[in-house]
């Protein structure tokens, strides 16, 4: 047991360090556009991700359940979701520079996780449900995707001020479209999060919707992205306005995750 905890801490810290290193290298890459630096940054990210996965797996073994039940566990999984989203996108489109604006988010969330208590506690009765896996698992993917979309939107906002030759991504319309696609995935997952939470709440607390601050802020986040998607699809809203929406949406995600827990009383106080 102690050795598992030791290796979990070791792999978690090593992943954290690799994420910091990769973030720095991604910044160097965006400044110099050296192919080698970019490749190294991606490799470091991948290495960090493997170690991060190992840390979460060890915790799963140790706790006998998925690591989804408190602030540390969700933050660690959220960071994992961000890096996973980036690596999947990189595998498909090979846009290395995006890492410079996504990896820092991952290591900041990891940093937040490392400030939380790492103690493994048994699941409280309300959390003993199969819906926990669906509800929190999809939240990890959804939040990860929104972080990625926010990073890409920031690239768009920077590129839109630069001349053609100095842009991070050659074609700003590509970052605009990518951000939209990633938001579509995150929005779909957020809908699953809210619906699975509602079904679970009906089982556990007698109501599928009770206007708890966490529920309400998830709905607010959902509304922000729903407005974004409608304006984009129906009114062809693109460019800066859409990018700002992606950033505001992610701020709302962060508030739902951290702000609600810290500032507002909620029956979700463990999450």
């Amino acid at each position, binding site marked *: 047991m102690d050795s598992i905890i030791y290796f979990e801490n070791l792999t978690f810290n090593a992943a954290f360090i690799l994420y910091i290193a990769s973030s720095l290298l991604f910044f160097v890459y965006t400044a110099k556009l050296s192919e080698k630096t970019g490749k190294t940054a991606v490799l470091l990210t991948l290495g960090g991700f493997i170690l991060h996965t190992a840390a979460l797996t060890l915790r799963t073994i140790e706790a006998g359940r998925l690591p989804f039940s408190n602030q540390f566990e969700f933050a660690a999984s959220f960071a994992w979701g961000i890096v996973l989203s980036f690596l999947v996108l990189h595998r498909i489109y090979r846009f290395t520079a995006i890492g410079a604006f996504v990896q820092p988010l991952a290591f900041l969330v990891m940093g937040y996780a490392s400030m939380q208590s790492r103690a493994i506690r048994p699941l409280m*009765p*309300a959390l003993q449900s199969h819906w926990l896996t669906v509800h929190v698992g999809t939240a990890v993917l959804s939040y990860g995707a929104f972080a990625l979309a926010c990073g890409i939107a920031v690239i768009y906002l920077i590129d839109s001020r630069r001349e053609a030759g100095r842009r991070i991504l050659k074609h700003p319309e590509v970052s605009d479209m990518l951000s939209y696609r990633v938001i579509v995935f995150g929005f779909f997952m957020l809908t699953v999060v809210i619906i699975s939470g*509602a079904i679970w709440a*009906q089982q556990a607390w*007698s109501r599928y*919707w009770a206007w708890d601050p966490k529920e*309400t802020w998830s709905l*607010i986040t959902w509304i922000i992205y729903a*407005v974004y998607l409608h304006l984009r699809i129906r009114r062809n809203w693109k460019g800066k306005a859409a990018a700002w929406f992606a950033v505001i949406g992610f701020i709302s995600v962060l508030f739902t995750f951290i702000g609600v827990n810290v500032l507002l009383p909620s029956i979700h106080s463990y999450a």
Partner: protein
Amino acid sequence: MNNRVKQIVRFLISLKFGIILLIIIALYSVIGTVLPQHMPDEIYLQRYPSYGQLILALSLNRVYSSVIFTSLLVLFGLNLLGCTVKSLRGQLKQARKGFFPKTALIGEQMENSPDQADALAYFKYRKYQVEKHDRGFRAAKYRWGVLGPAVTHAGIIFVLAAGIISSAASREGFVNLLPGQEVTLDERGIALRLDDFYMTFLENGSVEQYFSDLTVSSGPDDQRSETIWVNRPMQYRGINFYQASFGWVSSLVIRDAETGETRTQRQMQDGQDFFFQPGHLTVVLYGFFPELAIGHNQQPVSLSHRQKNPHYGVVLYEFNRLAGTYIIGPGEVIRHGDWEITFSHSTLYTGILFRSDPSYPVALIGFIVLMLGMLISFYCYPRFAEYSDGALHTWSRKNGWVFHRTVSRHLDQS
């Protein structure tokens, strides 16, 4: 309908109005999360002297049950319904076999024109509906995907309808029961009996789960017994019974110190007080501590809910003045003047929440339809391609760039 009315109706079912409503709903909801809800009016007036009146006038003290919020949701539901019906006719036309948008040829053109036979083979392999013409061919897939938004909106309308049904027709109650106790719940004569309540513990002493053995009946021939626990309610005739809370009830006895005669005996929950008239004493049961320990702030705490070291925290007031604070064991006597006070026989009681909500099946249908609609909208969106005079154009309203890129990549590779 005159033009003015038409204009108003058109605005009420417009996307613009829908977005305005969504933003107002979101802002109003934010207020409900930051401003304490459902407190007495005086508290708002005292705490927020400059805008307390405004809070009450706008019902910001009970945001989610206010007429304003309900009206916003109803308006949004109507807007969504109108918007959906308005677009449905056109969408049904586009979903038909044979529909091809006029805009397809202004879609993206592939840089390297592929061979017609290769392109045709690709689209056929990908199960596109292909129509040949003199100068090439047209290919389309997921035309019915255009109905995705309508299905999504229908799901949301179901969920909103569920909310209205819930606020109008749901009934909820709560009862604390000791093992063996029975209560009649409502006018239908449904009786609820708690046969037993118990907990299971983990190695570290924390509670693993709470269990209540319940018997519910509406007559001698119609009764059902089930064990419920958190996340596993019992359903009976449309009412759900939930394991909601628990606590300790302890037996207070006050005796005459001289004669030993029992002057009062009653059950008390943690935090309750009892005024004993003959002695002008108020006895407050601060708490029952099944496994007593003293916390770092010198306050009594319980390490677990197992009765390993049971003690009671008791506060006495005489003529409304503090007379003493005590930590005593079961049966241990507090002697105060002519009176002996004891606490003992602590038993667990359980809190059972019961609720009937006819809206839940409607909400479930809404959830399923909503998910289905989103899947169709985002992943089965219509895709069109036209090969004409040696050039291939692709077009998709929702995801043109990715669609074009996918087709280009495959055809370039082949």
